[in-house]
C-alpha cells in the first residue's frame, strides 16, 4: 500500500505495526466496548519521527489518533477507521530534574508514577495521581487533564504543568508555558483530548512530599449522614489530601477483594486523609473525629502499613466490582457536593428501574462521582440499557449544576452527554477552536465534541449493537 510504503521510506520497520495480529492490541483503550483496528500504528522514538508521521498523514489525509498507554476510560484513544495510531509510549525518557525549581523535563510517554519515582530522592513527587498512574503517561494525563484522589488539595494536571512543547499538524514546534502572557493556551491544551496538537515534551511541576499522613475511615448508617460529614469537614476549614466516599455495595466488593478491614454493614464509608507536618495532622485528626460524631464506626490508621491498606480497598474498587460482574461501565459526572445524597438516591431508583446493579465510589471532596453500572454485554440489549442509564445519570449531573465528566474526558463515549451540557453556539465554538489549530481536521477527528447533527438527532438516535458503535464522524440520521 502506497501510504504504508511512504511511512516505511523513512521510519524503521520495527516501529510501524500493520496487519490483523499486530494492530489488535491497539484496537481499543480501557473503554473496551468500542473497538476499531487502525490502518497502522507508529511508535516513534523521537520528535523527528513524529514530524515525519504527521507530514505523511497530512499529505495523504489520514487521521491520526495519538495514544499514551491506552488507559483512558472514554475511548479518546480508540482508533478511527483508516487512521494511524501515533503511540508515544517509546518516548519515555526523563531528560532533567531540577530540584531547586521543583520541575522535571520529560518525554510525553513517561509514566505518571515513573516521574514520582525518579524525583523521590529529592523529597519531591508529581501530585496528580489517577488510579492508572502505574501505567498511564504524562502526555495522556495532559490530554485528559487527569485528576486522581489527591486533586482536592493539590490540583489537577493543568495546575501541575509548567510548560509543554507541542507540534501542530504541519510539524511546527510550539512551546507553551505558565509564564506566557496573553491567552491561556497552555490551559487550553490540557484536556484537549489529542484534537489540537501532539505533545512532544513536558515540564512538570513537582511538589514536596508530605512528611506525614494519616487516614481516617468512618462508616455511616446512611448516605446522607456521610455526605453531610463531607460538607462539615470542608466547612471547618480543613482541606484533606483525599476525601473519598463509597456506598455499601462498593464497600462490600472492596472488602471481599482486599480484606482491608472495611465495615461491611455500613451504608456509606468515608476515607479522609490528612497530610503535612505531624503536629498539624494530629490536630486535624482530632478536629475531624469531633465532626464525625454521627459515624457508626471510626478508625484512624495506626501506621503507614495500615494507611496504605485502607487506601488499597478504595483504589481496588474498580477491579473488585469487576469481579462481581462480566462487565461494568464507569460514569464520571461531577456535581456540587450539596446534591450528593439526592443524586445518589435517584441513581439507586434508576438502578431498580433498569434492573442493573450500581456500585458507587466518589471523589467526594470535589463532587466527582464514579457510579459503576454492572452489566453483561453478552445479554442482548444490556449494553444499550446500560448506556441509556449512564446518560440519565449524566443528564442529572448537568441538571444539578455539574458536568458530564470530571476527569475521564468525553472521548467517543460522552458525545451525547455533551449535547446536554452545551448549546449549539457553545459547541460551535469548540469546533471552530479545533479548526484554528487543525484546519485539516486530522487530529483525532470526531472525538470530544459532537457534530451538531448528532445533538439534533439525539432523541431518535440509533444505539450501538453488539458493542459496535456507529462511527461518530458519520452523521446519525
Amino acid at each position, binding site marked *: 500500500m502506497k501510504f504504508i510504503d511512504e511511512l516505511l521510506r523513512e521510519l524503521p520497520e520495527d516501529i510501524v505495526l500493520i496487519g490483523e495480529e499486530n494492530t489488535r492490541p491497539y484496537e481499543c483503550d480501557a473503554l473496551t466496548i468500542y473497538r476499531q483496528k487502525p490502518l497502522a500504528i507508529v511508535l516513534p522514538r523521537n520528535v523527528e519521527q513524529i514530524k515525519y508521521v504527521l507530514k505523511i498523514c497530512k499529505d495523504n489525509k489520514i487521521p491520526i489518533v495519538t495514544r499514551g498507554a491506552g488507559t483512558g476510560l472514554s475511548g479518546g484513544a480508540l482508533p478511527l477507521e483508516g487512521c494511524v495510531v501515533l503511540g508515544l509510549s517509546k518516548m519515555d525518557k526523563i531528560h532533567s530534574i531540577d530540584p531547586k525549581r521543583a520541575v522535571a523535563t520529560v518525554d510525553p510517554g513517561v509514566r505518571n508514577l515513573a516521574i514520582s519515582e525518579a524525583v523521590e530522592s529529592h523529597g519531591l513527587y508529581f501530585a496528580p495521581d489517577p488510579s492508572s498512574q502505574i501505567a498511564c503517561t504524562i502526555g495522556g494525563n495532559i490530554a485528559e487533564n487527569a485528576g486522581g484522589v489527591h486533586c482536592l488539595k493539590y490540583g489537577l494536571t493543568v495546575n501541575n504543568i509548567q510548560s509543554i512543547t507541542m507540534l501542530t499538524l504541519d510539524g*511546527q514546534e510550539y512551546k507553551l508555558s505558565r509564564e506566557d502572557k496573553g491567552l*491561556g493556551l497552555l*490551559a487550553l491544551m490540557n484536556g484537549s483530548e489529542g484534537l489540537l496538537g501532539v505533545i512532544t515534551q513536558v515540564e512538570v511541576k513537582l511538589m514536596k512530599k508530605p512528611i506525614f499522613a494519616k487516614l481516617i475511615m468512618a462508616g455511616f448508617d446512611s448516605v446522607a449522614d456521610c455526605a453531610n460529614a463531607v460538607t462539615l469537614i470542608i466547612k471547618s476549614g480543613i482541606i484533606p489530601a483525599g476525601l473519598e466516599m463509597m456506598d455499601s455495595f462498593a464497600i462490600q466488593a472492596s472488602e471481599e477483594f482486599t480484606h482491608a478491614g472495611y465495615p461491611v454493614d455500613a451504608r456509606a464509608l468515608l476515607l479522609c486523609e490528612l497530610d503535612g507536618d505531624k503536629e498539624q495532622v494530629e490536630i486535624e485528626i482530632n478536629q475531624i473525629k469531633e465532626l464525625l460524631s454521627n459515624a457508626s464506626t471510626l478508625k484512624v490508621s495506626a501506621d503507614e502499613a495500615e494507611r496504605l491498606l485502607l487506601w488499597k480497598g478504595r483504589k481496588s474498587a474498580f477491579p473488585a466490582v469487576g469481579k462481581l460482574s462480566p462487565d461494568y461501565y464507569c460514569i464520571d459526572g*461531577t456535581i456540587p*457536593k450539596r446534591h450528593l445524597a439526592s443524586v445518589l438516591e435517584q441513581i439507586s431508583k434508576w438502578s431498580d428501574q433498569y434492573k442493573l446493579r450500581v456500585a458507587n465510589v466518589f*471523589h467526594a471532596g470535589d463532587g466527582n462521582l464514579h457510579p459503576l453500572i454492572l452489566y453483561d454485554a453478552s445479554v442482548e440489549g444490556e449494553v444499550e440499557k446500560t448506556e441509556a442509564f449512564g446518560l440519565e445519570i449524566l443528564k442529572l449531573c448537568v441538571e444539578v449544576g455539574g458536568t458530564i465528566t470530571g476527569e475521564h474526558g468525553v472521548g467517543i463515549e460522552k458525545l451525547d452527554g455533551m449535547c446536554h451540557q452545551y448549546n449549539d453556539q*457553545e459547541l460551535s465554538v469548540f469546533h471552530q477552536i479545533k479548526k484554528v489549530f487543525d484546519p485539516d481536521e486530522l487530529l483525532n477527528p470526531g472525538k470530544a*465534541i459532537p457534530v451538531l447533527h448528532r445533538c439534533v438527532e439525539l432523541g431518535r438516535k440509533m444505539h450501538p449493537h453488539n458493542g459496535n458503535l456507529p462511527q461518530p464522524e458519520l452523521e446519525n440520521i
Partner: protein
Amino acid sequence: MNSISEFQHFIKQHDQLHIGTESDNTAPCLNISGYSGVVEYLPEELVITLRAGTTIRQVNAILGDQNQALIFQIKDLDQTIGEVFSCSGAQFSDSVLGVQIINGNGEVMNFGGRVLKNVAGYDVSRMLVGSQGKLALITEVSLKVLPKKFALEFYEGVSESGKRSELDKRLFDGLKKIFDPKGVFV
C-alpha cells in the same frame, strides 16, 4: 448600564468598542464595573461565582466572613475580578472554573462550570484568562476558593515582555475571529 441585556444591546449597537473603565479615545468604552456582586457562593463547595465588576476588596470581605479566600492574595483591592481575569496568566487561571461571556455578536455563552473538576469540552474559561478584553466581554467568573490559611501566596501578575511568533499571531487571530468575528472589541 447594569444588566446582561443592556450589555448585549450596547455591543450590538457598536461597530467598535473598548472594554474597560477608561476610554482609549479610539472607541466608546464599555464599562461594566457597576455590574458587581455574588451570583452564588456556598462555602462548602469551595466555589464562588461573581459578577465581573466585583472588586477584590468586596470579594475578600465576602470570603473572609466564611474564613475563606481566593487561592492567592491580590494587592490592588480596587481592581475588579473581570480586570484581573482579563490581564492575568496561569497563576490566576489555576483558580478559574467557569465563565459567562458575551461575544462580539452580543450572544451570551457559558463555558466551564461551578464544580471543581470539569473536562467536558475545551477549557475555554481558562483560555480566556489574559485575553485583555479583545475576544469577549467577561460577565461572570466562577473561582475555586480555599480556607484562608491556604491562601498564602501573593499574586504576581504577568510580565509585560514576551515577543509573539508568527504562530502565536495566527492562533490569536483565529481564536479572536471565533468570539469576535466582526472585530468589535478593540
